[in-house]
């Protein structure tokens, strides 16, 4: 009778251990899926970061020359001359992207720096917000599958 009881206890212990291992394994799989199906990315284009919407410090109306600008920022995206006046355009674009399981979020922002010169001397510097974007997406096929 005692022997039988001991055997039952041993069997229960083995079962408990096996159960614990299974639960742990399931948790590990869940963590693995969540970690490996998430991601993030960050990218930017443009020779000057305009996201703070402040004009670069070295730009001063009446003193800064085209040469100063070319030296400090680099070749502009756009350039145009008309008589004594000329204009430069610099673009700045930032993008953040996140995805988790079946959800995606994308945020974009774009700014533009306009510089106007008169006889190669800076006359006006202005930053404009050119555009922005926000996108969130939940995979529709997955929702259909879940609904079924």
């Amino acid at each position, binding site marked *: 009778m005692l022997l039988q009881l001991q055997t039952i206890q041993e069997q229960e212990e083995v079962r408990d251990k096996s159960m614990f291992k299974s639960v742990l394994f399931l948790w590990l799989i869940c963590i693995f899926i969540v970690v490996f199906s998430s991601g993030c990315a960050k990218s930017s284009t443009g020779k000057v970061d305009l996201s703070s919407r402040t004009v670069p410090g070295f730009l001063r109306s009446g003193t800064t020359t085209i040469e100063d600008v070319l030296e400090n920022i680099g070749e502009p995206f756009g350039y145009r001359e008309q008589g004594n006046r000329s204009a430069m355009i610099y673009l700045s674009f930032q993008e953040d*992207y996140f995805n988790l399981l079946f959800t995606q979020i994308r945020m974009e922002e774009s700014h533009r720096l306009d510089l106007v010169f008169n006889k190669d001397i800076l006359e006006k510097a202005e930053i404009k917000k050119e555009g922005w974007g926000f996108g969130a997406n939940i995979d529709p096929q997955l929702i259909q599958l879940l609904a079924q």
Partner: protein
Amino acid sequence: MRNIKIITAVAIILMLSSCSISTFGKFQADEGVPPFIQVGKTTRTEVLETLGEPLVHRIVAGRETLIYNHERGDYFFLYGTYEGNELVLRLKNQIVIETKIEKTGSGWGFFAPATSNNPGTRRSAR
């Protein structure tokens, strides 16, 4: 049993891993200014013959300027990067008088490629 676990682990890693390299442009930014270009010697004709038509050809502040761009995107396993550069050449009397490489953009992605800026996708520095 041990072998099955190893095989499963390797299979999962292989399924999750991937890699891609894409490059766009007529010069290689990581190699620096093309060695045939010598300041004060190389002519516009030589540049055009060797590199081809530039992306931008204009006069900036009275100086002839040629711009070639190069973009490169790498993605390996879990991490991706993007970098854009351009080669700016200034000419005087059809001779190269200044060369420089300027960075136009960069990006990174963890578990996701920095896709929007990769060559051939919707947004580029120019």
